[in-house]
């Protein structure tokens, strides 16, 4: 190895250079920290620049005809800047008296916001003008208390459209961990259910920032910089407000405590109405729900927050006979003209299934129209569990619809292979007989029942129910969404034709006569589903007009006893709204 003669000298030079540079740093730090330190300390204490986030308004939600369902209004939020609260012992009781809010609750909110001491902690959203005025009058005694103007969500339809629109809530710790990189902060409101949750990403705008200079009292002196908030995208839903109102009033007017109504366009999957009872007022959540109201809602044994149209699955009862009928027609076990002997019971060995009436010889159409159990017992027994389950699956029973709402239940369809894990009991040959009329561990959501009816009404078209028609930006740019037609169930056209003939007959002369609207041809099926929890569930699933179906309606009443007498009249009432002049010119919704 060579020994370069210059290197030790040059290394010394480098060492001196580094020492020099560090010396410069030390001198400079001495200068600003020690010599001018007091001056800079004064500057930092007078540093009365405050940064607030400006909450962006969420997008407005409209129905399909442009009528607003959810809007925003300005409101006053009382907030505290924790770092400017010099004497909380004196200020908090004053604030508590002004707001009529216990000191402990204010303290709890401040503690929750402690992670970000420079951000205002929101104490009370949507404060009345009177209270705000009194706070402003007492500003001198309330240093650190600020009033922010923020948009608040207004659900114009209240309880009528609660479950489909959903509600807001303060972002949870878990959500925050996942979403912090998208700019969510503690205390932010986020969609917790319904469309508000599914389309949170569209509805949420981006918050702006406001940099203001304030005086020693915390009063803003001048705005230094303002990044305006950007409003979220507006949504146009597939909902028809008229139908939604009619459905809500019909269901609520039936004086039944709980149930659901779904209206679907069988051609596109557009959800025209979605109602669930009991309901709640989403406006309660718009400003952060109080602890008492939250406890009342979640503690209610009737589960008002549950969206019964999609969030829970129920025994379908006789509505399921459509699956049995379709399977029998496709498998060649029945034709339009098949004749069945219905003596009032069905027997396999020593097991006997009873029927509601003695019919003698009946044809297939009458079997559907009068929902004659023995006809379907016979077919179900011949089809067997495997084939019944396969057809049920193809027609969407026990399969999520994929609707753009959170919390959809799957429902279930037992088969010899799956019954054991579904119910814990082994498969018996008689199970196929039970399933054929929609009993025995078969469950569907009302939305699935609507999809099943849409499938039959549209010759097998498979649609994914949807709530979003299009979204719009403030500048008017629109993004429309194409309807999701997934395919077609490849049954023979005659199968659907025969089923529809039976459904029209059911309304004309069978079990569904209570849904009859003069001048309008309607097809539909009733269901009265026995269940282990109480009186049977009442179902009616129908469509209209019978020759060119443009509307599918499902009414479900939990423990409503009889589909024909409880659910069918609800559907009739909605139909009269959807088709106000059925005898004259047809007006599709």
């Amino acid at each position: 190895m060579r020994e370069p003669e210059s290197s030790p000298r040059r290394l010394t030079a480098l060492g001196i250079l580094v020492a020099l540079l560090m010396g410069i740093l030390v001198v400079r730090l001495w200068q600003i920290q020690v010599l001018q330190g007091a001056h800079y300390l004064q500057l930092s204490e007078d540093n009365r620049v405050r940064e607030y986030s400006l909450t962006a308004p969420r997008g407005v939600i409209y129905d399909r005809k442009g009528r607003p369902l959810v809007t925003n209004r300005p409101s006053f939020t009382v907030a505290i800047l924790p770092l400017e609260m010099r004497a909380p012992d004196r200020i908090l009781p004053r604030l508590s008296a002004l707001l009529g809010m216990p000191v402990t609750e204010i303290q709890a909110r401040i503690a929750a916001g402690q992670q970000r001491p420079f951000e205002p902690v929101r104490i009370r959203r949507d404060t009345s003008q009177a209270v705000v005025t009194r706070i402003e009058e007492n500003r001198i005694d309330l240093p650190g208390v600020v009033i922010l103007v923020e948009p608040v969500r207004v659900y114009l339809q209240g309880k009528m459209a609660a479950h489909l629109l959903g509600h807001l809530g303060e972002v949870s710790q878990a959500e925050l961990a996942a979403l912090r990189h998208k700019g969510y902060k503690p205390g932010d409101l986020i969609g917790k259910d319904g469309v508000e949750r599914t389309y949170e990403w569209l509805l949420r705008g981006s918050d702006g920032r406001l940099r203001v200079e304030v005086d020693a009292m915390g009063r803003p002196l001048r705005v230094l910089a303002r990044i305006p908030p950007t409003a979220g995208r507006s949504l146009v839903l597939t909902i028809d407000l008229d139908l939604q109102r009619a459905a809500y009033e019909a269901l609520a007017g039936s004086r039944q405590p709980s149930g659901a109504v779904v209206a679907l366009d069988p051609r596109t999957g557009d959800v025209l109405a979605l109602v669930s009872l009991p309901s709640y007022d989403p406006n309660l959540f718009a400003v952060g729900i109080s602890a008492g109201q939250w406890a009342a809602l979640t503690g209610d044994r009737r589960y008002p927050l549950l969206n019964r149209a999609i969030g829970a699955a129920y025994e379908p009862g006789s509505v399921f006979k459509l699956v049995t009928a379709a399977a029998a027609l496709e498998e060649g076990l029945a034709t339009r003209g098949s004749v069945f002997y219905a003596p009032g019971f069905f027997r396999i060995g020593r097991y006997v299934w009873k029927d509601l009436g003695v019919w003698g010889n009946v044809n297939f159409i009458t079997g559907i129209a009068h929902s004659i159990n023995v006809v379907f017992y016979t077919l179900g027994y011949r089809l067997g569990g495997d084939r019944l389950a396969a057809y049920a699956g193809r027609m969407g029973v026990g399969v999520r619809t994929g609707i753009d709402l959170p919390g959809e239940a799957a429902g279930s369809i037992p088969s010899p292979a799956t019954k054991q894990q579904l119910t814990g009991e082994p498969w018996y040959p008689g199970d196929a007989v039970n399933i054929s009329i929609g009993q025995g561990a078969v469950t569907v959501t009302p939305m699935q029942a609507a999809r099943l009816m849409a499938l039959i009404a549209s010759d097998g078209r498979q649609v994914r129910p949807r709530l979003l028609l299009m979204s719009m930006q403030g500048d008017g740019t629109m993004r429309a969404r194409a309807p999701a037609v997934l395919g077609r169930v490849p049954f023979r056209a005659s199968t659907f034709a025969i089923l529809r003939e039976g459904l029209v007959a059911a309304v004309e002369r069978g079990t569904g006569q209570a849904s009859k609207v003069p001048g309008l041809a309607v097809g539909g099926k009733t269901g009265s589903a026995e269940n282990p929890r109480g009186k049977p569930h009442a179902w009616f699933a129908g469509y209209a007009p019978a020759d060119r179906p443009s509307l599918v309606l499902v009414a479900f009443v939990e423990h409503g006893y009889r589909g024909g007498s409880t659910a069918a009249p609800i559907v009739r009432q909605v139909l009269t709204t959807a088709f106000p002049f059925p005898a004259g010119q047809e007006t599709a919704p």
Partner: protein
Amino acid sequence: MNRRLLRFLDWPLLLVTLVLVAGGVVVLYSATQAAGTGPAFVKIRLIHAAVGLIALAILAATDYQMLASAWRPILVGTIVLLALVDVAGRSAMGAQRWISLGPLGGFQPSEVAKLALIIALAKLVEPRETWPWTAVGGLVLAAAVPAVLIVGQPDLGSTLVVVAIFAAVMFAGGAPARVLASLAVAGAAAVPLVWGLLRDYQRARLAVFLDPGIDPLGAGYALIQSKIAVGSGQLWGKGFLAGTQNLLHFIPEQHTDFIFTVIGEEFGFAGALIMLALFAVWVGRGLSIARSAKDRLGMLLAVGVVAMVAFHLFVNIGMTVGLMPITGIPLPFISHGGTALVVMLGSTGLLLSIGMRRKKILF
């Protein structure tokens, strides 16, 4: 590793490195806790530190001559990575510097490039006895390719680091005064070219350095606020987690490039002095290792690493106290940023490796 090597392990260097990293975690917690993200940052920081210590151990155990003999693939690989950033990189603050590594954050090839360049330059300068213009041209090219890629990202700070490393290694390698002088002239002539490559915000930062008053709420804001933060710390500081400038979030990027403002505000002149003293020990040990290296290669490598750390230190602190323009360069061992920490610890490992294999003398 045999026992002779361990006997020559530079314990003071290792110790001050560990103290700097540990202190950095404390400061980083303070810088990020106001945003409620302190624990998360500390957790990621500890993971980065663990990776960095592994890099340190590996580089210390590796014979640096072996490492340097692989300079070609190292340099080419780095250039490929830098080019990749332009394709797959993630943009932060308008600068495309990262390649995403999922939960571990972004991988910043420009940091790795600094160490790769030290290795390549040291290996190229090592055999140099005479300094014909063709050889000088080759050296300039080896440094210029990564430098141009980095400045285009755009990362002005890291580009300046490359220039500093180049100058230090050339100087220590014995380049004659005429070569150094002409390189300085050529560098000055390239300034307008670089100015053309800069983004508007970078030009604004440089203009603001000359007169912070021209834009007190935009580009000048960070400069003014960081000076207030450091100055208001006075002699003893406002105390851990008690810096109002820090808590009120007056300083943008306070956990990365402006982390020194937290030290200055919360621990005062005394704290800053302790930190500078630790760095002085670090740099002093590095230069001592350069001096006692068993060969020219070891000396040049050590000089390159020392130049890198010293330059980072001076430019970073200099910009928070208004001595240097804001260029976006991390404080070694302390600023948030995993790649930088791993590279700094790896470079320390390289220094330790050179020190352990020093001249057989004395004893």
